[in-house]
């Protein structure tokens, strides 16, 4: 089984903890000839593929490297001469050129944004319920992953993202809740609603996830 990541959202909807356990790296490296088969645009301080999805490079992927040198913003961080990536790509003399594309990593800001986005979805799901006294979303099945959410009585939400074939993650969520109670709440230096920065919590969570990945959830 594969556990992708764990999020903990406080009762006011803010992200207080995030741990990426095994997020797969999606990168494609290929040598291109002129003209380039992907249309690239510069947005959010990244060079993003906007059109021309082929050979494993999808729309939304980011240009990570040119001829082995990393790309930062729109400049190629070549030690000898940093250059503008678009100028290099537009010049036919630079081809054949080796480009590395990859799926962008989520930034911390994006994670905070997504965690607070889940909060209203959770609330609306219980408002639109055809049955009385329903909880919010407990599991969500998507094409590429499955999301499990466990809300404690005090309103803290534990969110687990696992691969789609995985079942029985609610057990694991209860174990994470135990760890939270033991290593975050009992820590005198931890204040409620604040981001969790407890080494013990993190290391115990890590070993719990590793154990359940190796031996299955029933063993935890």
């Amino acid at each position: 089984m594969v556990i992708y990541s764990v999020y903990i959202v406080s009762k006011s909807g803010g992200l207080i903890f995030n741990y990426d356990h095994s997020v797969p790296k999606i990168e494609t490296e290929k040598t291109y000839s002129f003209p380039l088969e992907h249309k690239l645009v510069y947005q959010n301080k990244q060079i993003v593929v906007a059109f021309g999805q082929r050979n494993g490079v999808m729309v939304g992927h980011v240009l990570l490297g040119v001829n082995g040198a990393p790309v930062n913003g729109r400049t190629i961080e070549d030690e000898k001469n940093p250059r503008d990536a678009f100028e290099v790509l537009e010049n036919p003399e630079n081809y054949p050129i080796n480009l590395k594309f990859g799926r962008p990593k989520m930034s911390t800001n994006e994670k905070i944004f997504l965690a607070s986005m889940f909060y209203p979805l959770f609330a609306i799901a219980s408002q639109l319920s055809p049955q009385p006294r329903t909880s919010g979303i407990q599991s969500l099945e998507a094409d590429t992953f499955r999301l499990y959410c466990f809300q404690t009585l005090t309103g803290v939400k534990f969110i687990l993202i696992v691969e789609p074939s995985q079942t029985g993650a609610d057990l694991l969520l209860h174990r994470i809740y135990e760890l939270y109670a033991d290593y975050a709440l009992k820590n005198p230096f931890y204040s409620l609603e604040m981001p969790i920065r407890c080494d013990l919590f993190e290391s115990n969570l890590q070993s719990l996830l590793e154990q359940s990945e190796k031996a299955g959830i029933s063993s935890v």
Partner: protein
Amino acid sequence: MTVHNFYMFDRYGQLLFYAEWNRLRQSGITREEEAKLMYGMLFSIKSFVSRISPLDNTSGSREGFHCYRTSKYALHYMETPTGLKLVLNTDNVAVNVHELLKQIYSQVYVEYVVKNPLCNLSEPIKSDLFEAQLDAVVKQSHVFTSKPT
């Protein structure tokens, strides 16, 4: 197992059809408002799912997500390549609801709305035949039992 209610939206978010069977609780807002809230939630879930997904969606399906479950009910979602959205709320033990949604699309919507020259596809469905056939298909399905458990 039981079926609670059914929504159908066109690609612009307009409610085309609504039906309910064993709905035990009304949301307390008008049907129109409720449909907007439902469509808004589905729209946000789709965007949420595509952003939080650790992998690229390579299956080429449009919906991105299939269903969510709460403690009492489950929402099943299907979207056709034309952007037609079908939503079916059942209790949370129902299985294979996706098959039922596909059946509703191919055997009821396509047969009695798309092939009906009097139905305008961009307007709410007023066909009695469609309503009757939908009712029959849902009531015959294994997901449906008349008595809520």
